[in-house]
Structure formats: C-alpha cells, structure tokens
C-alpha cells in the first residue's frame, strides 16, 4: 500500500513530523513502512519559463533557438530540437547545472555553434506520463496549461510534484489498513492526534434509483451485502489534477473521471468499487448468483473465462457481466457513449473470492482486498463518497436513493476485557484506564469487562488479540525483557549425540560435509541404473513441482552424492572427499506419511583414493561409533556399483548399507572421467547396534608373543574367511591379528595368492610359553586346511 502524505493530511495532522520519524513510529505501532519517496526529489533547478521567441537555428533545420523568460529579468537562450513549441508557451526549463530523474545532469553548452543555457523538458524527462497530464503530448516539450504558475517557480510546486509517498507492508489480517482512512486512524492513534473523518454526503439528486434498477442477491452466503447507487448524464473526461496527483502518488494510473473515482474511493476507504453502464443491464435488474455450469464470460482483459458453480457472478436477467469481486466483463464497462452508470459497493465472502481468483488465475487489486474479508459496513460510506466525488467533479447527476441488499451479520463482537490477565500475559503493569484509552483510540468501545471492536476490525476476536492492541500502543519497546522462570535441562538426545559423533569422525578423516536437495528427478533412478522393478522407484511424488528435476522425494541419496561429485569433477577440482547425513523418504503402505530415514553417505574421487580408502573411512567410522558386529561381504549384482568392487554391509544379518566403486556406466551418466567411490549407511540401524560403553581394560602385565604366518591359498578366497578361521582357532589369547602382505606373482603358482599375517598372542594372567604359542599356530593351520590354505614353504 502506497500512501500519499498530502491525502493523509485530509484526515490527520502529522505535518510536524518528518517522513523518517513518521516511518519509524508507524513501523513500531504495527504498520510497517518499507520506504518512502519524496516526489520530484531527483529534480533540482528546474523552473517554469515562458518562451518569448522561437526562431530557426542558423545551421540546422531541425533545431530552434528560444529566448526564455525564467522570471529573473534577463531572458536566457536555449536551443531545442522539439517541434511543438511556439512563442508564448509556458514550459519546464532545466537551467544550467540542474538535475533530472535518472541522474541526468544539465549544463550549458553550444549546439551547432549556438549557445544553449539549459534544456526545455518533456513529460518523460520529468519522470511523468500523459496519464498524469492528459492535455500534454508524450513526444515533445511539456507545454503547461496549469493556472496560477509564476515564471521562475520550481517546477515541482508548479505541477504538484511534491508529495511524499510512503510504502507500507500491510499484514493480511488488516485489510482496513489498505486504505488512506485506515492508515489515518493508525497514525492518529500512533501520534495521539485527533482523527477527522467526515461523513460523505450528496447534496443534490435527480430521479429515484428504484425506478431504474432492482437488485436480487441469490447467494447471500457469498454476498452478505450489495449496495448500488446510480449517476446519469455522465460526462467522461480527465479527472482534476489533485485527484490525478493523489492516484499517481499511490501508484495508480489515472484513466478518466469515473474510473478514477472508483479507484480513489478504493484507496480512500479500502472498498473496491465497480462502475458499469446501465444500458447493458438487461431487464434493468442485477442478479448476484452462482455461475451456471458451463457459463462463460469475456473479462475486461479480453480473455474468455469458463465459470463453475462455486463462483459468484454479477449478472442481469440474461447473462453474467462480472466475476464478483474479481474482474468486470468486457461489455459492461464505461465508454465514451455511457450516459448512466451504476456504482456497485458490495461485500463478498473472502475465501470464495480467493478460490475463484486462484482458479481463474487472475489476482486483481480488487480480489486481493476482498479475499481478506472486508467489512460490510464500509459499503455505504464508500458509495456515498463516490457520489459525492461525482458531484464535486461535475461528472454527472447523482440519482436519488440507494439499493442496499443487506444479509450481513450486525451482531456486535464482544471480547472479554481482562486487564489483569493482559498485564500478566504481556509482563507489564498498565492501569485499566490506560488500556481503555488505548482501545478507544482505535475505535473500540469498552463496556464493563467487555471490549466491543469496531466492525472493520474483524481480526479482534480473543483477549490475546486485545492484548496485542494494548502492546502495540503501549510500545513493544517498553515491555521489559526478562528471563524465563524455572530451570530446564538442555541436552542432546542419544541420537543427536550419535549424529555429532558421525560428523566428528568423518571430518577427522578429512571429509567435507555437503547439503543437497531432498527432491530429485525420477530420471536419476535411471542414471544410477536402478532396475524398473526396484522398490526404490516407488517414491513420494510432488503434485505441483517446480520442474522435473525436483519432482520426487528421494529414496536414495546416491544420485545427490554423484551429482555433487560430478559438479566438482566438471569444475576441475582434482579430488573431492564428501559426506552428507541426508534423509530419504520411503513411502509406507497404508500410511499417509513416508518413513524419513537419515543415511550417512560418503563419496570420493581423485587424490589417490581407492576402494580401500573408502573402506578404511567406514571402518574407522563404525569402530569409532562402537557399532557392534558389522560385516562386509562381496556383492556382485548391485547395478550402481562395479560388480567386482562392491560390498554389502550388514550388522547381525540386518542390512546396514553399501560400499563400492561406482559402475563405469553410472560414471559416464554423470560425466565423471575417473573412478568414483560411494558408500552409504543407515544411521538408525547403526545406532541400534551400538555396543554399550565398556569399562577400562588394564594394561597388560605379561609380555606378548608374536608369530608370523605366510599362507598360500586360492586367489578367490576372501581373506575374511581366513581371518575368521584364525580368530576361532586361536581363541582369546589372540590380542591382535594383522595382515601385512598379499602377494601374487612369479613366486606363487598361478591362481594362488600369498597372504601374510602377524599374530600377537598374549595371556592376561601369565607369560605365554613358546609351546603354547606354537600350539596356537598348529590349531590355526589345522583350521585352515578345509579352506585349502597352507603354510607357504
């Protein structure tokens, strides 16, 4: 909402307050000011001048040389290229060293050898259009037809370009403040100055509306009130300058006197008005009804709209002429042949207007106001004001009488008035009298322990709402700042601590955390080669996505990771090692909401990393988190991964995650040239298998024995099987088992590999004898026999 300060001054005197103070105080009382603009403030040193003579330029056939009287005795010479000026014209003159809108600076100079001491200005050079001054032409010098201008007078005051426009951000609960009178009321309460709102009156009327028109409201639920007045012998012409100025200051383009009056009243009272030509009202009867199924209407913007029965239309005996509260029809509007008009000032059901405007895809100034639910009581003063303005402008003759079809609820709202409760709620100590004074300033009545809000304050329903009014005008800044009473224990939950440990362990290993979108394209499932029948393709689908790329909620985090790695690769980053704790959204049969599961996803390329770098990171993570009993086993059939470099991770038989080198075809899909490694782990499964914290293990008192074993086995035998057998065979004296060499080559038979382990053996209660250690090695060799593992000779 843009407010003209000149207009505001009609109702409240805030002339002694600077725009900055005004903006700050209004913001602090709840009407947020986004900014303000001093009209014409970009213009400097531009004055009214009179052309004394206009003669052709000696060296140019498109320039003329003018002698201009700018009110200081000596005429000045200005050269111009404009063709529409003649001696005697009054024009805006930008003098030497003057400023124009858009940072344009004017200095004297020579044009084709003739001295020019400034510039004659057009409308657009002053930041105006022909809508502001309909008598002037767009492409030429602005020849003033304003009465009472002085030569040498600043152009701003001469043409009324000196208003201050204040831009407000009005919240959706205060449609009453989308108006000059509403803001005047707030300003009066804010600055504690009187509010002067005259009741509009029409002095002279002809005929009676009831002889010319009738109104029937068939859908009173959607139209609580419909008020109409008429004007005859309409004279369509531009509206006067003061009205055009005010409309311009509020950001509305002047059109003609009748249209301008409806806009003026809407801005002044917050009540959208509609004016239509009486001769197009078939049967001289307005019918307010639901649209018929299949009914169509061509709206003012030239679009044919298909209407549905939940939409309200303004119709006559034959056809609809407007979508109620949204937009008028193409054929009912005012034109130059209009003689008699009907002013409609109505109140519609807000939600219904909102649905209609949304369905038809046309949010208008009018629908934007109606949908916030306007006050039925404003209909009458608004239409009266419109008629008063018709009279004032001499735009026609007001027809006597008024049609008022009123189904609105006139019951007063009564809200409990509890000063003690409000003081406790706000944490202040304000007297009852002070509260009453505040409430009366904004139009409330207080009767005993009841507040009766004015009809235009539909937002005041509860004592909490009344408290806000008290707080606003007492001053939010005067409410003290206190600490919450009582103590509370702020702490992370176990799951939150667990997640923090994941961050710490992964970051300690050099990984950068990433953050990716939770929605992806269904095509990404193809990119990671997910089979068509994969259950992961069943996902939560957004019905109104921005685009396909963000149209489904992900069921896997792998595409997000690969996309990030790909972006880094294609940005020529040599290496990347990343992780994300990101959610997947798995639809649950029979439930409305999906299962939201956090997954830990790790991905890397470059920097010499390989499968075992990634595996090492996971090992450190799982061991650091004390996840108990996890295992990895080769997985050859996961379509996203290299069939020979992929493992499934389980814990106690439960699926925990995957790790692998990404399949070359997938890398190709993501335009990554090198090898990429990705793993993911289910956070909740990990958390469910965290071992209890164990006590401290005493440091060993007895020495350890070590035995190294070089073994030969089939190259396809996973070392995990060997290790498992060794651990079982040695028993609890095995302190540490470490693999220190794997070898294949000329020293070893084809199809075989050599695997070398170092065993650290130790007993807690004695020094192990060589015999005991050797016996353990014998047990190991025996246990390895069935696996075809032998000691390397």
């Amino acid at each position: 909402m843009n407010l003209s300060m000149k207009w505001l001054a009609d109702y409240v005197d805030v002339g002694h307050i600077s725009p900055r103070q005004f903006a700050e105080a209004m913001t602090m009382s709840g009407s947020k000011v986004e900014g303000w603009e001093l009209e014409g403030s970009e213009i400097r040193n531009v004055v009214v001048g009179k052309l004394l003579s206009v003669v052709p330029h000696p060296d140019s056939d498109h320039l003329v040389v003018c002698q201009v009287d700018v009110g200081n005795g000596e005429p000045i010479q200005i050269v111009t290229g404009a063709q529409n000026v003649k001696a005697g014209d009054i024009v805006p003159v930008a003098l030497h060293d003057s400023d124009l809108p858009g940072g344009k600076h004017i200095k004297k100079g020579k044009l084709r050898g003739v001295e020019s001491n400034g510039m004659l200005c057009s409308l657009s050079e002053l930041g105006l259009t022909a809508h502001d001054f309909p008598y002037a032409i767009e492409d030429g010098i602005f020849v003033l037809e304003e009465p009472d201008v002085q030569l040498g007078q600043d152009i701003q005051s001469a043409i009324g370009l000196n208003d201050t426009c204040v831009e407000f951000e009005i919240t959706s609960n205060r449609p009453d403040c989308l108006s000059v009178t509403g803001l005047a009321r707030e300003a009066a309460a804010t600055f504690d100055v009187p509010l002067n709102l005259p009741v509009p009156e029409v002095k002279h009327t002809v005929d009676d509306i009831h002889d010319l028109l009738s109104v029937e409201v068939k859908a009173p639920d959607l139209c609580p009130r419909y008020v109409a007045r008429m004007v005859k012998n309409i004279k369509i012409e531009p509206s006067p300058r003061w009205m055009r100025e005010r409309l311009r200051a509020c950001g509305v383009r002047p059109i003609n006197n009748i249209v301008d009056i409806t806009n003026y009243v809407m801005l002044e009272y917050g009540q959208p008005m509609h004016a239509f030509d009486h001769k197009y009202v078939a049967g001289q009867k307005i019918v307010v009804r639901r649209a018929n199924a299949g009914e169509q209407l061509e709206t003012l913007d030239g679009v044919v709209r298909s209407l549905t029965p939940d939409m309200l239309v303004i119709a006559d005996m034959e056809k609809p002429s407007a979508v109620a509260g949204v937009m008028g029809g193409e054929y009912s509007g005012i034109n130059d042949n209009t003689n008699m008009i009907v002013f409609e000032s109505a109140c519609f059901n807000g939600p219904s207007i909102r649905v209609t405007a949304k369905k038809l895809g046309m949010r208008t100034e009018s629908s934007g106001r109606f949908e916030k639910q306007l006050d039925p009581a404003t209909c009458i003063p608004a239409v009266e004001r419109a008629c008063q303005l018709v009279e004032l402008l001499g735009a026609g003759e007001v027809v006597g009488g008024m049609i008022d079809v009123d189904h609105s609820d006139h019951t007063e709202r009564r809200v409990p008035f509890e000063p003690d409760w409000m003081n406790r709620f706000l944490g202040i100590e304000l007297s009852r009298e002070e509260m009453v004074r505040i409430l009366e300033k904004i139009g409330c009545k207080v009767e005993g322990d009841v507040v009766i809000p004015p009809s235009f304050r539909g937002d005041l329903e509860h004592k909490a709402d009344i408290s806000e009014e008290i707080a606003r005008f007492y001053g939010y800044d005067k409410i003290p700042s206190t600490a919450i009473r009582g103590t509370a224990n702020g702490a992370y939950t176990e799951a939150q601590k667990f997640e923090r440990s994941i961050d710490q362990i992964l970051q300690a290993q050099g990984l950068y955390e990433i953050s990716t979108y939770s929605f992806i394209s269904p095509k990404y499932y193809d990119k990671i080669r997910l089979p068509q029948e994969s259950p992961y393709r069943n996902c939560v689908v957004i019905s109104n996505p921005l685009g396909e790329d963000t149209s489904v909620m992900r069921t896997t985090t792998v595409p997000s990771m690969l996309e990030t790695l790909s972006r880094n690769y294609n940005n020529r980053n040599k290496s990347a090692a990343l992780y994300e704790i990101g959610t997947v959204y798995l639809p649950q049969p029979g439930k409305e909401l999906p299962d939201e599961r956090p997954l830990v996803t790790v991905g890397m390329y470059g920097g010499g990393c390989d499968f075992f770098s990634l595996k090492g990171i996971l090992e450190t993570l799982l061991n650091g988190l004390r996840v108990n009993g996890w295992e990895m086993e080769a997985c050859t059939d996961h379509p996203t991964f290299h069939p020979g470099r992929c493992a499934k991770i389980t814990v106690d038989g439960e699926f925990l995650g995957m790790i692998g080198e990404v399949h070359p075809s997938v890398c190709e899909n993501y335009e990554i040239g090198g090898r990429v490694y990705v793993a993911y782990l289910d956070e909740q499964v990990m958390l469910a298998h965290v071992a209890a914290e164990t006590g401290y293990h005493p440091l060993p008192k007895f020495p350890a024995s070590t035995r190294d074993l070089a073994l030969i086995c089939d190259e396809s035998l996973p070392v995990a099987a060997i290790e498992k057998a060794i651990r079982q065979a040695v028993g609890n004296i095995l302190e540490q088992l470490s693999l220190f060499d794997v070898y294949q080559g000329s020293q070893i038979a084809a199809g075989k590999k050599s695997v070398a382990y170092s065993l650290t053996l130790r007993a807690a209660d004695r020094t192990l004898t060589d015999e005991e250690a050797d016996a353990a090695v014998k047990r190991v060799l025996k246990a390895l026999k069935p696996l075809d593992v032998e000691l390397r000779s």
Partner: protein
Amino acid sequence: MLLEDLQNIEKQAAQALESAADPKALDDLRVKYLGKKGELTAILKQMGSLSAEERPKVGAFANEVRAAIENLIEQRSNALKAQMQEKKLAEEKLDVTLPGKAAPLGKSHPLNKVLDEIKEIFLGMGFSISEGPEVELDYYNFEALNIPKNHPARDTQDTFYIPDNVLLRTQTSPVQIRTMEKQRPPIRVIAPGRVYRSDAVDATHSPLFHQIEGLVVDKGVTMADLKGTLEMFVKRLYGEDSVVRFRPHHFPFTEPSAELDVQCFACHGEGCRLCKGEGWIEILGCGMVHPKVLSICGVDPEEYSGFAFGLGLERIVMRRYNIDDLRLFFENDVRFLGQF
C-alpha cells in the same frame, strides 16, 4: 723413578688425548694407557720391587694418575660428542619454510556450522532439540496453526503438495504442534530443519531452505520472557553490543506477534545498502502462542501460556560470511566448502 714414569705417562696421555679426533682414537688411547696391557698397568706391575714404605705412596699416586687420565678421557669424549652433535645438527638444517605434511581436515557445511552455534546457545538456555517430519500433514502445517483452508496467509507460503492433505512443510512450526501433542508443559525446545516453498531458484531464493523453530510453554510465560530470551540469543549470536528491536507483525498462530530486527552492523541504523536503507535487519518472527493453538493441542490457555519463534538459517549464514548467492550452499563445490 716410578713416580717420574707415572708423571710422564700422565703428560703423554694428556698430549695424546688432545689430538684424539674421534671416539675410536679415544678408545685406543684408553686401552693404551689404562687397559690391562696398558702403560699404567705395566708400571704397576713393577711395584713389587718397591719397598714397603714406597709402595703405598706410588700406589696412591698411580691411582691419582689413573683418575686424572680417566677424567681427561671423559672430558675429551664429551668435547668430541658435542663437536659431532654440532656437526650433525649443522648438516641436518631444514628449510623450515617448506610446506608441512598436513593430515586432511574435514569441514562442516557452513549451514551446519552456524546451526551448531545456534543450538549451543539454546542448549545453554535450557532448550532441547526436537525434530519433525518434512513430508507433513496439512493439519500440522496449517490447520492446527490457525491457518484454515483459503486463509490469505497461505498465499505467502507457496506450497508443494503431495496429495491434497499431505505437503512438504513450508515452515518448522508444525513441530510446535507435534511437540505439544507429545509432551506436557513445561516445554522448552528448538526444532531446526528443512522447509520447502515453491520458489524458483535464484541468488536469494531456493525451493528448499532451513528454519529453526522455538517453543516455550509453561505457567506464567510472558511476552517479557519472549523479549528477554530472544535478546539474549541475538547477543550471543551477534555480540553483546547488538541493538535489537521488536516490532508488531502478524502470524496466524501467535498473538501478539512480532518481528525482531537487529540494528544494521554496517551503518548502525543510518541506512545503507546492506539493510536496504532501513537501518535494521530482520532476523526472526515470534510471538505469544495463540490461545487457539494451545487449545487445539490440548493445553489449557487459561493455565498455560507460551511463546514461539522461527528464524531462517540461510540468511543468517549469508550475512555471517558475506555470501551473496544462496545457490552456493547446495552446489557444494569443495573450493566453497573448504573456506569454513
């Protein structure tokens, strides 16, 4: 006679030691003079020929000479060690300006880095951290927050719908409702999380961003408590000298409602480019929980009151690091991530 010999040995040994250049030479000298077949031993062997009177004298003198030579050897040995160490140290000189061998250091995403800081502040004020689903029922996201269907407040939050009654939450406020349904007062929680609005991606808009919700409900919670709590938060986050103002606003689920601004750090309220000339920067929305919302959650508004607040994480992080493009957060270029 023997005494003279002993004196000579000491002299010779002293001379010889002075020129001993390495531990080997030193050891040879030790053997030569003090060894079992050394010169001193040879002299001592002749002691049998001495008279009983002379023997103790010569014996004592011989011991003195031995001690003196041993002392000289040790001195020389120490000197040699020191020399050699000095030489070694000189040889081992490094160009200390060569780069270090760094273990790679991982990083938190900047959003989480600042979020962690915010969590710590609230934990310190006795808040716990709560969570709620991102795919949410219309009821929790709107209806229970006093935003019925076709309420104009829905317009400011362009919503992604699944079917009609399920949506991607547009705010973290539904966690307020879920928390009150689960837990009786006193309640003191924050709920950080992802929220979704149908905004096309550009430098300042993203269809996905993060909010942090806060909720306090107890007997006798006042608007003054709201002010005190949030002022403390802002001062912890932005510094004790931050200037804060609360200005009336409207949210359907709080009454009274407010927005909290901090005075612009760059211009201190004068108005500049950073604050778009306003002198203040909007940080969060807040208010006293609407009694209707308390009732919906089964909390008696006559017995309890509370306040709630919500702030956007991205804007706070962008201002902290002067980041001018929101997209950088979700592009995750390592050159960006490595800076935090």
